[in-house]
């Protein structure tokens, strides 16, 4: 760094000493009080081009005020040069400051750019990995959602099936309508049970008699004026609606010795109509079991 040392301006080293010597030489021309004589001025080696101007008469006063400082006015060519240099410096400082604040990569060196590029690549790789991880996660979650949805749909189907079986849901579909007229009131509960059994045997999936939904534990009891089903008194004519295969049920009721013949022999009359879209709308309230609990499921 000796180069930079040599380039110093007014530094304390060699140049400074040279000038101190110079100064001493100059001060040798002055009187002991440090006030230089006016004739010494043109011989100033620092400003050889400084023309003696009208300001010269005040010069001794200046020197007396600051005996060691340089003469400041009027500015010599050297001082103007200094001012210009400082102006350039100020300009450069401002420009460089602005530049540094403004641009990011433009003023960087190749090695810095390589480093930044490297960092960016590493970051990109990291982000890629993270994206892949998140995609996998998303896939898993989605398939999990699918499984959940499938299970939910299955549960819903099962609920519907069980609801129809238990009579808690209305049912619709093809089936038959059986109307039993009984002018002499000679139809007994046993006959209605036989009818229900026959319908069940023929594949009826939902049965309703009058306003009563017929389920597994529906009871028929002979009443004073008709038949009491599940506590509801039914009066003739008895109206059955059964959802199932209409042809099978109709033929099952029609067979010789079957339900219709029995009814006819008892003085009643049963009429069967088939329909493609009948509705079993009567519902049945299901009480939650008080004692029974689901047994732990055995693995299949």
């Amino acid at each position, binding site marked *: 760094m000796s180069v930079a040392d040599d*380039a110093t301006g007014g530094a304390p080293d060699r140049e400074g000493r040279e000038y101190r010597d110079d100064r001493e030489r100059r001060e040798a021309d002055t009187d002991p009080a440090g006030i230089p004589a006016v004739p010494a001025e043109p011989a100033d080696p620092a400003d050889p081009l400084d023309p003696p101007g009208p300001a010269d008469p005040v010069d001794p006063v200046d020197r007396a005020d600051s005996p060691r400082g340089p003469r400041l006015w009027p500015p010599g060519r050297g001082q103007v040069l200094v001012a210009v240099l400082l102006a350039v410096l100020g300009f450069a400082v401002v420009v460089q400051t602005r530049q540094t604040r403004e641009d990011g990569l433009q003023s960087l060196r190749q090695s810095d750019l390589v480093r930044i590029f490297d960092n960016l690549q590493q970051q990109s790789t990291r982000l890629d990995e993270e994206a892949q991880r998140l995609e996998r996660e998303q896939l898993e979650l989605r398939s999990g959602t699918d499984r959940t949805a499938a299970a939910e749909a299955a549960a819903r189907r099962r609920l519907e099936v069980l609801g129809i079986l238990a009579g808690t849901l209305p049912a619709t579909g093809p089936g038959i309508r059986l109307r039993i007229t009984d002018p002499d009131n000679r139809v007994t509960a046993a006959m209605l049970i036989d009818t229900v059994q026959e319908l069940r045997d023929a594949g009826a999936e939902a049965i309703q008699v009058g306003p009563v939904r017929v389920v597994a534990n529906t009871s028929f009891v002979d009443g004073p004026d008709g038949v009491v089903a599940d506590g509801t008194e039914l009066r003739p004519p008895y109206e059955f609606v059964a959802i199932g295969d209409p042809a099978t049920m109709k033929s099952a009721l029609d067979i010789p010795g079957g339900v219709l013949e029995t009814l006819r022999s008892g003085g009643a009359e049963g009429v069967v109509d088939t329909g493609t879209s009948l509705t079993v709308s009567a519902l049945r309230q299901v009480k939650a079991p008080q004692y029974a609990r689901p047994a732990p499921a055995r693995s299949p």
Partner: protein
Amino acid sequence: MIAALGLLIGVVAGLVLQPTVPGWLQPYLPIAVVAALDAVFGGLRAMLDGIFDDRVFTVSFLSNVVVAALIVFLGDHLGVGAQLSTGVVVVLGIRIFSNAAAIRRHIFKA
């Protein structure tokens, strides 16, 4: 006096004109500025010491800038530009500090 005025004019000009540094100058301008600052502090110290001289200042200013830029240029071409720039800045910073210390002793006598 006129020097301070020149500095002020330069700053104002930079603020007003808002030029962009040309690409070939970009690596060298910061170092040149630091080198020039070193020269300015040296000149300030010399002024307080009473040994300031315009010619010396001018020469040292220009040579500082040129040498600093030259070092960076050389470093860039040798592949050690960043390290050399750091070294130059460190050295110039040390010199600026020592000059500032001298100036401080002159002004505050401490």
